[in-house]
């Protein structure tokens, strides 16, 4: 049933990448419990705008949990308290009346704040540009059924390929490591015969870029897996570790 919530928000406000940020407290009264978290922010933002206060900036686009644009740390949890849920799919019925909600951007040296809750995730693009692909050109490809792929393998590849690149894994990691993100792509492609061909260069180059971006090191705490809205498994990290060792011992 619809309920009306009265909330207190402690929101990180930061004018731009060069400024120092701080928390601001806003009242969020009369919020419908059926609203999504981002719709709650929309309502708050509309009220701020009417008062001439600049609304809270946050990234968002599809609002159905697939584009990976949204994300913030809610009361210490990346994407909030529900498992396997992006922030846009989190609904206010999961909160209680009179709750205080702390809203912070994803924090990592490699994810610098652009404004308020908006962070720069372009490091992910740079990592993928170093090997997150199969080097085929358009056209001239063999028939799609020319190479059978065991269903179990194809399914594993699909599990890894579901990553939405939201960076919640980095946000949740005590060391701000990007291992889950990078390993998901390494695994997805290495598991398929099409991507297997260049798996050694791929893992070497992508890990090198990951390190250069300033992400932390993995300490096997698996908080990334717990925070991942798509349930990407840490077995992907193990696979990447294995491949990285193998390609360092016997390079391509």
């Amino acid at each position, binding site marked *: 049933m619809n309920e009306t919530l009265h909330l207190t928000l*402690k929101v990180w406000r930061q004018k731009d990448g060069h400024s120092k940020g701080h928390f601001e407290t806003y009242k969020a009264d009369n919020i419908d419990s059926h609203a999504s978290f981002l719709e709650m922010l929309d309502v708050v933002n509309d009220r701020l705008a009417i008062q001439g206060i600049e609304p809270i900036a946050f990234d968002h686009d599809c609002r159905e949990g697939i584009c990976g644009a949204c994300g913030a740390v809610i009361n210490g949890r990346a994407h909030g308290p529900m498992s396997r849920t992006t922030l846009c799919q989190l609904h206010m019925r999961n909160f209680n009346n009179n709750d205080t909600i702390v809203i*912070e951007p994803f*924090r990592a040296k490699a994810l610098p704040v652009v404004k308020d809750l908006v962070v720069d995730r372009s490091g992910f693009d740079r990592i993928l540009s170093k090997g997150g692909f199969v080097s085929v050109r358009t056209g001239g490809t063999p028939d799609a059924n020319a190479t059978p792929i065991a269903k179990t393998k194809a399914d594993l590849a699909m599990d890894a390929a579901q990553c939405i690149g939201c960076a919640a894994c980095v946000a949740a990691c005590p060391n*701000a490591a990007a291992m889950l993100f990078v390993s998901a792509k390494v695994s997805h492609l290495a598991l398929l015969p099409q991507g297997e061909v260049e798996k050694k260069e791929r893992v070497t180059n992508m890990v*090198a870029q990951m390190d250069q971006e300033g992400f932390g090191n993995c300490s*096997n705490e698996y*908080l990334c897996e717990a925070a991942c809205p798509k349930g990407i498994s840490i077995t992907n990290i193990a696979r990447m570790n294995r491949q990285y060792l193998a390609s*360092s011992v016997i390079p391509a």
Partner: protein
Amino acid sequence: MLKKYFSSSIGKKQTVAVTGFMLILFLIMHLAGNCFIYAGPETFNKYAATLESLGPVLKLIEWALTAVFAIHIAFTAMVVIENKKSRPVGYAASHYKERSLATRLMPYTGIILLVYICTHLFDFTFADTTTAISIFQNHQLGLYGLVVRSFMNPIKLVWYLIAMSAVGFHLSHAIQSLLQTFGVSHPAYTSFFRKLSLGLGVGIALGFSIIPLYVWFYIVPTLI
């Protein structure tokens, strides 16, 4: 190429893991050796003497072990420093509720162990086993006597037990962690590996901890 490997995040982590693995093997052997204490002073001292008789080989092993320790600590330090740098601004709301106690305590248990190892070396390895400390009921009991005497000191006993629980915590995370770091992982075995890790960690810690308790409750009353 090697330089690239050892300066990469995964390479460093694997170095920590492989040295950790060696240290675990060392610990298991050490524990096995310690168990000679249950066989009485002669056997225990004979075991110690056999080790001593290895001479240069023993020296080599000791130096290798020291190197392994040093690498383990140095690479861990590098990793930890980088990790601290990777998140310059922390979270205001507590973030790490799901972290297990063992992982949260990892750096602290590591430091406890480092301090402990120093005291341990001074207490036993570098100690003179022929002094009066080792004499019980007019018998020179050598290293055996030294061990018994040490554990008669309640402060040392408690410190030893603290250190061994640190070993337990450290290893219960470390073993599954090193499997993951070397890519030994499969969803079907994840829970087994975590249990194995916990079991081995606790087992090794208990194995070491029983010895001083055995000394305190069983040997000391018979010797004095």
